[in-house]
């Protein structure tokens, strides 16, 4: 008798998790977003004004060109993203951190917290070194991500990512948290593929296409030929 109860309990729990998984992964989302495009700007303002709490935004600077594009994105949408926001800034190289620190000086209202992430993969690393750094990165990023995600509870929030590999780990932890803690709600992960990607997605892009809540490409042919669920608005950086 006991085993029957146990079995049914396991069945119910696992079914619940499968349903939860379906709910949080993007490929089962309905394409309602595109139909809402006719909404006017007044409504947009209303949505923003209705929330009195500051926006909490996590941004990852992936070094070099990734950092450059991310800073351009933030600059282009500064009114929305850098108003009175709290910025959780992930980085893995000192140059990116300094570039951001210099950039954010213009936005006096923003509060910034810096989080250093170890690089997911060093160029030219041996297999053993790679395994070591990947495990180290996994643990360290887990601690960061949990802290940041909980700090965002109850506030309007956004995870803005554009590569490279570390973004996969960050997204993975966020989705695992969503899976295990249904009350936490969506993490709101937006991934913007690099402008340099015209014909083929990056490896990070290929993985995150199945994970993130909104996948944005900057070239129409990339959406049409490879990533039909992605959204294209033109060049954003």
């Amino acid at each position, binding site marked *: 008798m006991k085993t029957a109860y146990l079995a049914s309990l396991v069945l119910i729990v696992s079914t619940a998790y499968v349903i939860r998984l379906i709910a949080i992964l993007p490929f089962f989302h309905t394409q309602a*977003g595109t139909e*809402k*495009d006719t*909404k006017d*700007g007044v409504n*947009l303002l209303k*949505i*923003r004004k*209705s*929330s009195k709490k500051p*926006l909490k935004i996590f941004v990852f600077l992936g070094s*070099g*060109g990734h950092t*450059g*594009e991310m800073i*351009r994105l933030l600059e*282009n*949408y500064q009114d*929305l*993203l850098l108003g009175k926001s709290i910025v959780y800034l992930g980085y893995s190289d000192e140059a990116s951190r300094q570039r951001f620190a210099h950039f954010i000086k213009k936005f006096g209202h923003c509060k910034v917290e810096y989080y250093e992430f170890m690089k997911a993969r060093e160029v030219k690393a041996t297999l053993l070194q790679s395994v070591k750094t990947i495990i180290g990165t996994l643990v360290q990023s887990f601690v960061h991500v949990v802290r940041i995600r909980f700090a965002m509870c109850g506030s*309007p*929030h*956004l995870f803005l990512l554009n590569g490279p590999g570390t973004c996969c780990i960050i997204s993975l932890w966020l989705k695992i948290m969503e899976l295990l803690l249904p009350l936490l709600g*969506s993490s*709101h992960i*937006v991934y913007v593929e*690099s*402008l*340099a*990607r*015209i*014909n083929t997605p990056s490896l990070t892009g290929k993985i995150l296409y199945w994970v993130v*809540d*909104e996948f*944005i490409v900057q*070239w129409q042919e990339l959406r049409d030929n490879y990533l039909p669920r992605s*959204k294209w*608005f*033109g*060049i*954003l*950086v």
Partner: protein
Amino acid sequence: MGIIEEKTLFVTCGATVPFPKLVSCVLSDEFCQELIQYGFVRLIIQFGRNYSSEFEHLVQERGGQRESQKIPIDQFGCGDTARQYVLMNGKLKVIGFDFSTKMQSIIRDYSDLVISHAGTGSILDSLRLNKPLIVCVNDSLMDNHQQQIADKFVELGYVWSCAPTETGLIAGLRASQTEKLKPFPVSHNPSFERLLVETIYS
């Protein structure tokens, strides 16, 4: 504009890898001759890290005379390793430095034309500031995205492109002085902003 008194070409090789072919081509007699013909009197070159001594050597080989005149290093954001020379019997001023923290102000305030390597950051810097741009693809790099991005921007009419050869660069320069580019669209996109708002406040 006020600040631009001397018609200036700005050449940028990117911060990371030097681009010797491009530097050597823009310093060639044939190219400099062409520049002077189109009224350019100043050539600013950002040549990348670990290339200073080669640069100095190259300029002197081409008959460049070192000038001790002060370079506005604060406005250029280039540090005091910057050097100034005169080429072509004093008709062309050449300023060279490895790296600048103020690329945008050099482009905006000092440049009439930009020749850039095909990194997206450098391309966007010029296009966002509405400066005419010739993109020169570094064919010794393994990165074929640079070729793709250059081709794409040429196809859209936003830039001219050329190979890092003297004839290629001269052709590019001629195009830049006789043709017009299509305006680069503004960066702010209301539909993307709407998506962000809906995501954030959902």
